[in-house]
């Protein structure tokens, strides 16, 4: 933050010490603390099936959070993800009325997500508009289309093999969703931390003009990131629709907030330029464990949302308070 001359250290920190002092380590400690507290507070917590159920609290949101993390690192944001879920789910419901099979439904869900992401991406990169406003607009627009189609009705009656995506188990207590979540985590880790594309994402977030001068196709990278975010919202829509077994226009209402909270809690700088996928993964577990633990203690959902709101502001405010206090 400060513009004063940065001193050059005599010796670099050892990688082990650096890792120990990182945000991810702190977050991991918090996750473990929550896990231990939960198991003391509720006798029902330490149970393989209960813990497996707990993962459903965050897997769908975390899938979107991976793509959102890249988008935020690149200095953009997508607030329309929850509405994309609603629209994709509605499209799947509409396809169901036309007797489309299970794989057709999945294709419709993913396709709708990609189309919505492409729309956001075109508005932002093609017309050069700020992504906050565009996606606040499309947030109303996408869910609004859902309302036009459904009104106060809902779609139900999805085929029985469609329920595998949200309710199926791969092995014992390991659900399909959890495997998908883990697989996507690895894919996004490679994409962000091990490819040229990932370096470009950081470069754009730190200095878009500099990135452009370095030969990075800024607009194209951003467009791809919006596509990915839309696609992930589509994946989440398939899982959520399959898990709930029905579609209503209010599906996934307010999820954009939880996804952004997850990303920020994971140590991604909301102003862009820094962050990591492992951080987001741990943040997903923290949020999942907290909401599940509070749920076991019979805390109502809306009170949990107070907690999430405080978490969102707190994780950004505390490090700043800490540096102010030390200064």
């Amino acid at each position, binding site marked *: 933050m400060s513009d004063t001359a940065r001193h050059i250290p005599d010796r670099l920190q050892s990688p082990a010490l650096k890792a120990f002092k990182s945000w991810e380590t702190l977050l991991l400690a918090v996750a473990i603390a929550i896990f231990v507290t939960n198991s003391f507070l509720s006798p029902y917590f330490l149970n393989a099936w209960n813990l497996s159920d707990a993962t459903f609290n965050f897997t769908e949101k975390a899938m979107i959070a991976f793509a959102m993390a890249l988008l935020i690192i690149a200095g953009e*944001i997508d607030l329309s993800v929850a509405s994309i879920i609603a629209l994709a789910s509605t499209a799947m419901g509409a396809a169901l009325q036309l007797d489309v099979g299970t794989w057709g439904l999945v294709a419709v869900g993913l396709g709708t997500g990609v189309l919505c992401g492409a729309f956001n991406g075109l*508005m932002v990169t093609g*017309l*050069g*508009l*700020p992504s*906050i*406003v*565009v996606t*606040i*607009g*499309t*947030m*109303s*627009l*996408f*869910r*609004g*289309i859902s*309302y*036009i189609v*459904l*009104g*106060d009705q809902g779609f139900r009656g999805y085929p029985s093999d469609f329920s595998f995506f949200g309710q199926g188990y791969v092995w014992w207590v390991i659900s399909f969703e959890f495997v998908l979540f883990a697989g996507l985590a690895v894919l996004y880790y490679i994409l962000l931390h091990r490819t040229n594309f990932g370096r470009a994402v950081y470069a754009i977030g730190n200095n878009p*003009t500099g990135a*452009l001068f370095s030969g990075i*196709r800024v*607009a194209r990278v951003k467009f791809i990131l919006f596509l990915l975010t839309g696609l992930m919202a589509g994946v989440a829509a398939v899982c959520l629709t399959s898990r709930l077994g029905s579609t209503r*226009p209010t599906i996934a209402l*307010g999820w954009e*907030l939880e996804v*952004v*909270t997850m990303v*920020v809690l994971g140590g991604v700088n*909301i*102003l862009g330029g820094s962050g990591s996928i492992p951080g987001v993964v741990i943040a997903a577990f923290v949020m999942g464990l907290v909401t599940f633990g509070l749920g076991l203690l019979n805390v*109502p959902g*809306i*009170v949990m*949302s*107070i907690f*999430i*709101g*405080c978490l*969102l*502001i707190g994780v*950004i*405010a505390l490090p*700043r*308070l800490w540096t102010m206090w030390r200064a």
Partner: protein
Amino acid sequence: MIRYVKSREALLVGVILALIALIASRFPAFILPSNLVNVFTDTSPLIILAVGQAIVILTRCIDLSVAANLALTGMVCAMLNVAYPGLPIPVIIAVALMLGAVLGAINGILVWKLTIPPIVVTLGTLTIYRGIIFVISDGAWVNAHEMSAAFTGFPRAEILGLPVLAWLAILTAIIFFIVIARTPLGRAFYAVGGNPHAAVYAGINVGKTQFWAFVLSGTLAGLTGYLWVARYSVAYVDIAKGFELEVVAACVIGGIAIAGGAGTIMGAILGAIFLGIIKNALPVVGISPFWQLAISGAAIVIAVAFNARAGRAKGRIILKRAEAEAQA
């Protein structure tokens, strides 16, 4: 003169008149003075909130917590009225204004002192404020029969044929028109949004100016909270849920640049009136109210695309050429 004709405000007035003419050609009853008064009164909360939001957006911030602030203040006012039915209305209005200001100041402090991005702050406080309503009310509703007649009657009382609610919207518009155009603070809002670095050199405290923008927006949201609850005679956790988007839509349609520093209070008010007319015309024209969300969403997207032409950042020429070639 030509400047006024070509302005965003003139364009909006034209669009609004055309819209009214279009509706009236099919449904003449829509332009009866009594109906137009109804439409304006119905739009008044949106106008008051849009004025506050416009100021916040002018300073390069955004306040997504206005609807939650409104709902929380409204619930507190309603519960006060139930607990102390004899409390005079001016006291309740004072409570609403002060509580709204405090909730706005919390946003403002976080933005000013901790330099947290406004969108994150207000997304957070939006859920926190809504959650607090649930905690203080225990999820219960405050219904019409529990409120005193004076409490619910105030916004509906008519002066010169217009309800108090409508007069308050007009009064807010006038006051803030003067604040923006005739006070140093008003100029500071534009300066901070237009170029924060230059504003610092001009001796303006950027964070503090943004803080005041949030306080003003919060105060107006608090006032609207009481008016809303009194007008609809009900208070519960979810009142005005998602209304913040409509407020932002009104500002964007009214030509308030989301990058800050450009736009007028009049534009925001016209944007609110435009949305209000659409909202009230839908049932008259026979379109399902479920269309409304999509229409305001489409209006935001179209308006912001429209704004982009005027407010596009002028980069270095060399960059633009390189960019054009890269895309070709």
